[in-house]
């Protein structure tokens, strides 16, 4: 084989690996919704929701319970990533990266704020004040934010074909959730619900762009571990103590968490979420923020299928049309020509 062909092959392999990581992230993100939904009906979270709803109303109960679940989820991800990086022999690289506050840690700390409190709280605010379909559709727009930022900030190249693919995938998601959203968006949509809806794409979009910048000089496995250590600290050192000071019994319910069944479900949640993020971060340097974020929109299809297979929630016929649009979008994106250029930036 001549050198030119070998070089092109390497670029094809790089692209395939990037898409493979992004697709694995998509599947795991969808599967996370299984343990993620089960947690809400297990104690202490179910009792917590009920007790707070009686005292402070349903929306407060939703938000405060979501904080505790998300805080434990972040902690579970840190445990999973410690096993992951320990097995790969990368704990040394984690320590070295953590020491570099200015070039590395600050980016992943910022990524954890946008991906954690901003995006996740935004999801629950949108869900609580407007509805689940509205929150899901708002989330579909995050690649648009990520793509614009990555392009404007550090010149990530984005082809027309990749944009067309992303457009198809967003349309697919809107078709899946479209019917639900019309019922939710009545005459009076509270402003806080709209703000929550905006927080989702801004949170995840900005996280991706910031992570892309930090990943210039950091390894994805170490970077991601750092991002989740930061998120865990934000929940447990800042948010939960503030909620406890305000009067919510956070620690009473947190201490009741140590039940084998709940811990096992949380571990599965951590496993799916942690490895989903590993795959997501690994795809960024290979195919760029825009394509990686575009592909992962397909998680909505996986969620609906997984909920049907495991919980028997029969999907609407819109899943077929939306799913087909999403898969067509992914195919358009994947069929981009691979050139001999090795950089994804201008």
């Amino acid at each position: 084989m001549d050198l030119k062909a070998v070089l092109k092959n390497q670029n094809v392999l790089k692209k395939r690996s990037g898409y493979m990581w992004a697709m694995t992230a998509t599947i795991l993100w969808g599967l996370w919704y299984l343990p993620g939904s089960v947690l809400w009906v297990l104690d202490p979270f179910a009792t917590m929701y009920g007790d707070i709803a009686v005292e402070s109303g349903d929306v407060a109960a939703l938000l405060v319970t979501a904080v505790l679940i998300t805080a434990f989820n972040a902690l579970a991800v840190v445990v999973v990533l410690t096993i992951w990086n320990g097995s790969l022999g990368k704990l040394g690289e984690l320590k070295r990266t953590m020491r570099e506050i200015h070039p590395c840690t600050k980016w992943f700390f910022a990524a954890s704020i946008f991906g954690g409190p901003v995006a996740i709280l935004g999801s629950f605010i949108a869900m609580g004040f407007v509805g689940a379909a509205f929150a899901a559709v708002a989330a579909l727009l995050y690649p648009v934010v990520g793509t614009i930022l990555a392009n404007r900030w550090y010149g990530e190249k984005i082809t027309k074909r990749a944009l067309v693919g992303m457009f198809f995938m967003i349309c697919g998601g809107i078709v899946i959730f479209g019917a639900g959203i019309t019922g939710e968006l009545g005459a009076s949509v509270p402003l806080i619900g709209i703000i929550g809806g905006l927080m989702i794409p801004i949170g995840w979009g900005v996280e991706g762009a910031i992570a892309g910048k930090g990943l210039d000089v950091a390894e994805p496995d170490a970077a991601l571990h750092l991002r989740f250590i930061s998120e865990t600290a934000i929940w447990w050192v800042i948010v939960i103590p503030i909620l406890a000071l305000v009067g919510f019994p956070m620690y009473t319910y947190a201490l009741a968490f140590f039940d084998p069944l709940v811990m096992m479900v949380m571990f599965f949640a951590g496993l799916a979420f942690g490895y989903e993020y590993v795959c997501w971060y690994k795809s960024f340097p290979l195919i760029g923020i825009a394509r990686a974020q575009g592909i992962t929109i397909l998680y909505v299809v996986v969620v609906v299928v997984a909920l049907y297979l495991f919980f028997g929630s029969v999907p609407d016929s819109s899943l077929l049309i939306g799913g087909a649009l999403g898969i067509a979008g992914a195919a358009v994106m994947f069929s981009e020509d691979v050139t001999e250029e090795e950089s994804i930036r201008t």
Partner: protein
Amino acid sequence: MTLRPLKFRILEIMSDGKAHWNNEIIETVGEEYAMTDDYGRSSINFDLIELASGGLISSLEAQIDEDTGHLLRKYGITDYGKVRASESCFRSL
């Protein structure tokens, strides 16, 4: 010597302005970080691919190693790489 993250060290080697073959960098970095087995060498090579993908370094020349059949690439630091290295890793650049 306190070791810094792998990509910092690679950028430090590249910041002499000269072109370096990937196997030289893998050799040097592998010795320093005790990553001389196949997995360690592949990890360092992957960091080089990621740095090139991000546009911090670029490949100037390529050839196939006749003994191993592996693709060898000669990399040089780009202007963007110099900027990122000076912002991030080395104030002196």
